[in-house]
């Protein structure tokens, strides 16, 4: 019960925060994006003029926050979606509850899922960019984005060769649905990015995230500890992190003072900026290592 209560309260409170904005201007097409990945790519392609509303988790780029939101993508309400009078709803299949999607179909509101599935690897990310580029008639820009991505990733790969060690990295995330700290595992998208950045995820697993516990921390004993934005800001500083989270203070990361803040939306999906993000991660996790 606790979990559902927190979940529902969190969802409704979050909705309350971001429903204040009014939409502006006249739109011929009225697009709603329910995927943060799609939202970022739309802006990167420069195709955002018809975007009228997004879901709560679409937080990049910063200008997207001026758009009204329709709710948390897993706890949508039909009225919330219908209120923005969409002509097309874009989603990646990771939406709920099921009956809302069914009701939208009954209302004959067009919905689209891009064919390129939700892969968390570079190939499908580039494919998605191309597909969306075709859809929005921004093929040229799509090509540019992919070339930049390739270039950045190549640079990252070269840099990775130069470092002798592969630091063990642990990424801690605050799960707002369950009000607990979680740690990302090697199976997550972030895990991949760490790999590209020349590091190694200290926590192995099959699920993308596991609950943070002293056993998990002790077994991982990371060299570098990263916290995503919300979770880090809750605690405030590396000292608070060391004291509040169980078992952290005895890790190599804590002793070496290597606790850093990262943005969640940089880590959880592969997109046009992933190359830049990987380079940034690389810098972060190798800082303090002996120079080649």
């Amino acid at each position, binding site marked *: *019960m606790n*979990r*559902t*209560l927190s*979940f*529902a309260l969190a*969802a*409704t409170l979050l*909705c*309350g925060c971001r*429903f204040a904005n009014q939409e502006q201007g006249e739109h011929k097409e009225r697009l709603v994006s329910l995927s943060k990945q799609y939202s970022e790519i739309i802006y990167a392609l420069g195709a955002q003029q018809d975007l009228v509303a997004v879901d709560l988790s679409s937080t990049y780029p910063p200008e997207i926050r001026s758009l009204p939101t329709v*709710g948390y993508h*897993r*706890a949508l*309400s*039909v*009225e*919330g979606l*219908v*209120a923005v*009078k969409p002509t097309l709803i874009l989603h990646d299949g990771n939406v*709920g*509850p*099921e*009956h*809302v999607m*069914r*009701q939208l179909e*009954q*209302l*004959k*509101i067009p919905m689209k899922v891009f064919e390129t599935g939700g892969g968390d690897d570079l190939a499908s990310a580039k494919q998605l960019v191309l597909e969306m580029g075709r859809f929005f008639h921004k093929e040229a820009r799509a090509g540019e984005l992919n070339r930049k991505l390739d270039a950045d990733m190549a640079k990252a790969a070269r840099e990775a060769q130069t470092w002798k060690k592969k630091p063990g990295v642990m990424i801690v995330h605050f799960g707002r649905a369950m009000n607990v700290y979680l740690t990302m595992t090697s199976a997550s998208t972030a895990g991949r990015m760490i790999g590209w950045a020349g590091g190694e995820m200290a926590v192995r697993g099959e699920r993308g995230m596991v609950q943070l516990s002293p056993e998990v921390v002790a077994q991982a004993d990371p060299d570098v500890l990263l916290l995503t934005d919300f979770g880090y800001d809750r605690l405030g500083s590396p000292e608070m992190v060391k004291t509040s989270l169980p078992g952290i203070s005895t890790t190599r990361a804590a002793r070496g003072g290597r606790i850093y803040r990262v943005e969640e939306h940089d880590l959880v999906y592969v997109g046009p900026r992933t190359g830049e993000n990987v380079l940034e991660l690389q810098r972060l996790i190798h800082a303090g290592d002996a120079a080649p």
Partner: protein
Amino acid sequence: MPVTRPRSPYGGVVPALAVALVVLAVFSVRLGAIPIGFGEMASAMSKAWSAPGGLDLTERIFLEIRLPRAIATVLVGASLALGGVLLQGLFRNPIVEPGLLGTSSGAAFGAALYFVLGAALKFHAGEWTLPVAACLGGALATACVFLLAETAGSHRESTTTVLLIGIAVNALFLSGVGLLAYVARDPQARSITFWGLGTLSGASWRAVAVLAVTTSVGLLLALRYARHLNALMLGESEALGLGVDVARVKLIVVAIDVVLVGVATSFTGIIAFVGLIVPHLLRLLKGSDHRYLMVGGALAGAIVLTLADVAARVLLRPAELPIGIVTSAVGAPLFVALLRGRRERFE
């Protein structure tokens, strides 16, 4: 010597409730992110018969979303309130209701089990599978409460005992739901957590069809036992002395309660306190005759839930508050007040 039959003291309440219900239901249909006027409602309904392809968005919202939801709210409210009347009559206790005694959480558990296992077993037997699974879960939980109450010996009539047993059974089945949500694959898990606090947003015409059957059959059947429940108010021994087959009546009434609440819960999740608030208010208003409580209860329950649904949709517009939060926010303080009043009088 002829005696003039006294005028029924319960007269007038039922028609008043019926009128209030119709007014509220219409009002509720008009509310939402997009207000719907009477003209649009009328045109939507006439077009539904003649030209179903030609409906515009507002008309479609009315026919596919608002109308089934309003009707489902009425039926669920009636079912829950009636469940409360039945359980209170059975336990001879005004402080019990399906939410407190585990029927709702058992039903939620049954439904959640169906969500999780049904997908795994690829089993699907049409519209009725989910409600049936919920009823089985509700029956299991209610049976637990009854059995534990029986073994409580001389204390079994005590409010405290019954409520404590209800808390224990509730906790058991709710943790079962939590466990299922935890192990479930993603789409099912989302459904379970979303609907755990009660919501009418999933109402569809199919749900309305099932609910219409169970609510009307449940009410008609319950009315046949109104007198028996009246007699039961005197005590089991006294009821027996009046010719009531107590064991049989208990079984049938519990079965009706489980079906009513189980089916409702399978569509909406757990909505608590309606079965507590409504009979209490009705008794305060006019008294405890069960025919009055059943019919009045069904109507008043529909009214209460319609009001709660309006609140749920409007307070954080256009987001939706889970309706279970609204009913609990009102019902819990009332429950506490009831407990205090009772303590002063009896214990």
